[in-house]
């Protein structure tokens, strides 16, 4: 093909494809969302996002205030205030950096700030490992942050666009953190379809803070001190906003499909080979890849194993999930996190799944919890097979610990 023809062919394409990492995909989403204010402070693996945003700004491809803060606390405070003034904002961090911002992270949902943050999931210190663990993002699970986990660079980009749409909806106005597993997603390049600016503009309306806008033309006081006469009512408002978020998420995915022509099915969780499955594994993030491979192998041996990958952790689609999980004879929950001393010593997700299944008279299949892949340790195909076998044992009623460590040297 002649070069001119190649160029012509390229011009006809409505959608570009780029070979980029999950972090870079999020940076591209920031550009497409025309984010106004971004603050940065380096910590691996989140820093790959700020580096790429920095490059886009330096190359003149993106126009935003790019502020290097002196630490994560300021990093999140700056965007909190910018968002109160009506700016679309982006922020992010990892591991203990996210923890250092904790005070700012608690006030952000309280003030109904629709901040979008990327958490490059990283083990908490010590021992200072870079690898993935989900405890960093999960630390804000009760505070009014919407939490979503993604497993590919494409999903990272798409979810970031959806995130702005959901968080900035007046019915919600709550911050949202997109969790990307350190290394597996943040540092691996994959082919990503980049939607056109026109379609993004159609999908994502401008951020309108309305009556909550901090501006001289709209004189209001934000965050006055209140005592016991006010706190419960304030918390109840956030409860209602998170309750509404569930519906807004559904609407956003439906619109995403309509405008971009790509569908994620059920927004809250992905089901893989569950139609005919006997047992099911449940997990979040990039461990989906080895799990799917292992399931395909096990199916050759006649083991009908399915997989449910949770995307949205907050809001948590409890009713839908329990309805889905009640179809199976036993459930295994893979946690890339820990919650020491929790009920049955399980991980966070295992506890949430059991909680979702409890109400009502519906079937309650046994749930086995697995703690696995901590600190960036790989979740291997044999690991998955070992877990599936344990779940089969649970289905058969065999006695075994309710929480098991997988991939541990012992």
């Amino acid at each position: 093909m002649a070069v001119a023809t190649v160029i012509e062919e390229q011009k006809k394409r409505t959608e570009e494809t780029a070979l980029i990492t999950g972090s870079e995909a999020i940076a591209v989403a920031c550009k497409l969302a025309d984010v106004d204010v971004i603050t940065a402070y380096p910590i691996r693996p989140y820093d790959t996002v700020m580096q790429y945003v920095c490059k886009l700004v330096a190359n003149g491809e993106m126009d935003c205030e790019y502020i290097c803060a002196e630490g994560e606390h300021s990093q999140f405070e700056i965007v909190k205030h910018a968002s109160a003034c009506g700016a679309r904002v982006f922020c992010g961090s990892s591991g203990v950096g996210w923890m250092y911002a904790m005070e700012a992270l608690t006030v952000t949902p309280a003030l109904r700030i629709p901040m979008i943050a990327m958490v490059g999931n990283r083990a908490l210190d010590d021992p200072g490992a870079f690898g993935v663990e989900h405890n960093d993002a999960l630390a804000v699970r009760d505070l009014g942050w919407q939490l979503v986990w993604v497993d590919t660079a494409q999903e990272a980009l798409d979810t970031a666009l959806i995130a702005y749409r959901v968080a900035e909806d007046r019915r919600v106005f709550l911050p949202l953190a997109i969790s990307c597993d350190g290394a597996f997603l943040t540092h691996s390049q994959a082919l990503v379809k980049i939607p056109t600016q026109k379609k993004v503009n159609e999908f994502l309306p401008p951020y309108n803070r309305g009556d909550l806008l901090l501006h001289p033309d709209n004189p209001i006081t934000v965050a006055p001190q209140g005592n016991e006469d006010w706190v419960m009512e304030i918390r109840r408002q956030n409860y209602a906003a998170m309750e509404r978020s569930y519906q807004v998420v559904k609407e956003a995915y439906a619109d995403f499909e309509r405008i971009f022509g790509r569908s994620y099915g059920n927004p809250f969780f992905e089901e893989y080979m569950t139609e005919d499955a006997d047992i099911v594994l449940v997990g979040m993030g990039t461990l989906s890849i080895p799990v799917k491979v292992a399931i395909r192998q096990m199916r050759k041996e006649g083991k009908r194993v399915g997989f449910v990958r949770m995307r949205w952790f907050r809001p948590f689609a409890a009713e839908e999930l329990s309805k889905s999980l009640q179809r199976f004879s036993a459930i295994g929950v893979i946690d890339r996190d820990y919650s020491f001393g929790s009920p049955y010593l399980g991980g966070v997700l295992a506890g949430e799944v059991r909680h979702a299944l409890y109400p009502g008279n519906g079937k309650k299949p046994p749930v086995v919890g697995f703690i696995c892949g901590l600190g960036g340790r790989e979740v291997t195909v044999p690991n998955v097979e070992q877990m599936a076998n344990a779940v089969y044992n649970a289905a058969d009623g065999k006695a075994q610990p309710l929480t098991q460590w997988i991939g541990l040297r012992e």
Partner: protein
Amino acid sequence: MGRLFAIEIIYRGIFQKTLATRISRTIVLAAHQEGKMGISFGRYGDSPERNGIPAKNFAIVATDEQTLQEGMAKYEPKEVDVTIVVDDTLCKGVESWAWYGLQPVNRLLKSGGTLIVTSRETPETIIAMTHRKQTPYNLSILKGTVSFSGLWVYKDDHTDVRILGAIAKILPDLFSLQSVQKAIISEWKSELKAISAANAHERTTSIPVKPNQGNPEVPYHFTLPKWHEMREGISIPSIPAGHEMDDPKTHAEGGFQPDRNPTFLKFSTRTMRPVVNFDTCIKCTLCWLQCPDSCFDVTPEGLYDANMKACCGCGVCEAVCPVKNCVTMVNETEFTDNSSQWESWRKDKHSYKVWLEEKIKNPAERSHGFRYRGQYEEQIPEMLEIASGK
């Protein structure tokens, strides 16, 4: 169930925090001398670490543990046997830092309960300041100047033990004078204080206050909104900037009156108020500039009128005014309303002058917060003389 006693102490933040704590603690300790159980605590929503702001302490005492729990099941008692007011200017009503509107000091008092007020005023003056109540109660005045001190030092003028002696007289079922004296000796090892308690016990009398006798003002209050009626994001609309003032005589408009928070007025923090001589004012702006509460309204002719709904009585205006007797701090008990001094002056300058001279002719007998080293030492002998009954 045994018997439950509840006593509240209404006091001024900083100046009387230690005093109130000593009273509520020693009530429990004296009752415990007779085998009773009790707790002593401050109302948590208050801010006793703010100068002069009204605050409350409670002592809950019971004849046994289970009855005490009945009293502890609600944080703030719904009714009390005795209310102690350790500064008579509080009788105009109290507004907690926690925004409860203006509350009458006798609000929690049981029918037939007793209001004890530390004061040198007459019962008539105290009753006129105190809001009307539908049920009868008794008023007992503990003669004495108001005991004010700083947060870290204690002005030991025996106000604490004199109040305990008075309680033993008013509510003998709670504890006897002997138990009070035992508690005093055990706490402070001071025979002199034990004698002061006995003197107060001997001299305490009370007069009945009839239903609906007293200050007819309806204290301002507000209704808290429901959760879905509140603005989201912990945001509240700002107070509007303000407006011009209206001259009561000519109806000329001018000057500037800032709009102020209608649900947190703060004037019950005041123990003294500034009285302004508009005839000698040189319009230097210092009072207006230095007032920490922006309480000065600017009149159409450029004078400064201290707004009595906003004034906390700190005395900064008097301290910064360069003209002699132009701004004078006067005991709050001298006044019955919060009306504008400037309006009175505009309406009748001669009458205002007579009124002003009457108000400022006697020097202030109390401190409004500014003090000097050695002031307590000067004040204590007078109080001890009162306490000894000489």
